[in-house]
């Protein structure tokens, strides 16, 4: 087992494989992603329980010293093609600094959390997030957010192409329908985890509080 300067957490009992693939994850090489936990999304999707699960993870992640990333989507005047398309199809994107755009007030972050503003669904797109994570030595990502088949999956797909080892936390994500949520996670795990693995918040919490030498 590789030493990375910090104690490794226990492996997570995930689907379709024990995560991460190489068994190595620690506070120094792992980030928790909190995507789209904005007032408008939480209300529209009635995502109280999912927010609650994500907050429990955040609490433990902060204690353990993981990198924390918070991303929020807002209409970006410079990305006019995206914004125009959104408006035309009625897929609402909140204006920046509006009440619905605001992050949940439950999200109490440490000063060194990475805050990302994006106009589309993928929190990596033209945000500098990849560089920011690499500079910190992050290689593993725990992914939570709203909605599952939108911001969450778009971001996880991009991260996966970049080589990050991703774990979607199923009950800390909610889709625009239960079917879309479960179907998108099924696609995530297809082919021995084409886009990473899936586990529950309890599975992650159990591993976060155990260590392997």
């Amino acid at each position, binding site marked *: 087992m590789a030493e990375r300067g910090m104690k490794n957490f226990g492996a997570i009992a995930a689907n379709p*494989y024990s995560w*991460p*693939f*190489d068994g190595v994850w620690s506070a120094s090489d792992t980030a928790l992603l909190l995507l789209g936990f904005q007032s408008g999304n939480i209300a529209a999707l009635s995502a109280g329980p999912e927010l609650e699960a994500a907050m429990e993870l955040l609490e433990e992640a902060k204690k353990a010293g993981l990198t924390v990333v918070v991303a929020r989507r807002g209409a970006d005047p410079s*990305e*006019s*093609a*995206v914004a*125009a*398309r959104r408006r*035309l*199809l*009625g*897929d609402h994107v909140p204006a920046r600094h509006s009440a619905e755009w605001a992050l949940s007030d439950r999200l109490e972050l440490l000063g060194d959390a990475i805050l990302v503003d994006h106009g*589309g*669904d*993928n929190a990596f*797109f033209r945000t500098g997030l990849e560089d920011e994570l690499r500079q910190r030595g992050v290689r593993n990502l725990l992914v939570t957010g709203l909605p599952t*088949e*939108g911001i969450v999956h*778009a971001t996880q*797909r*991009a991260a*996966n*192409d*970049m*080589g990050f*080892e991703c774990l979607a936390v199923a009950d800390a994500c909610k889709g*625009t329908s239960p*079917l*879309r949520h479960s*179907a*998108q996670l*099924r*696609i995530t795990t*297809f*082919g*021995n*985890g*084409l*886009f990473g693995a899936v586990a529950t918040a309890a599975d992650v919490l159990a591993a976060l509080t155990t260590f392997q030498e």
Partner: protein
Amino acid sequence: MTIPATGGFWPLGGPVSRAEIALIIIDMQVDFCAPGGWIDQLGEDVSNTRSVIAPIRHVLEAARAAEITVIHTREGHRPDLSDLHANKQWRTRVHGLGIGDKGKTGRILVRGEPGWQIIPELSPVEGELVIDKPGKSSFHRTELADELKKRGISRLVVTGVTSDCCVQSTMRDGFEYGIECVLLEDCTAAVETPNHKATIEILGAFGGRWGGVSDRAAFKAMLEMLDG
């Protein structure tokens, strides 16, 4: 299937000149959809991915006749595998034959190998753009976005395999780049039908969050209406 809200092939509407449109055919390679290719060697069923060869051939011929830009993609890695992430290789090796390993069609998904080639039925012809991609998205670490910009292409008709994987990634990234994408439902497939159906449902929801979902008959009808 057309999008009722806008009544046409393009969710964002028209008019569109032929110079703005490209047909993209994703990863129709021996390893993914030919007998004896990688997926076939794994013992998985390639009948779904093979079922779209004739429909794609049909739209390819229509695109060539209409003289719109044609783009082919190939998923593959450099022979030294320097562009292959460790987790991607590990996940495929669990199946017994992973990316970079020697199979019956050469080294799996390695550039230049027989299995990596586009199937003969859909071979590119001179003047068509061929994009080599190391990831799932056709935009990830490729020249695709620059090429589209350079050529003034803002509309992408999406076909190929597999719908739940590289096709979905390409649609989503096209959206991020502000490219209007329309997927031809009868020109894409997945290894597992439930994943294909779920992909179509997700992509088609909300009038097409990341692009439209249509079919080859509507594509041909759209081409016939082009005048510019």
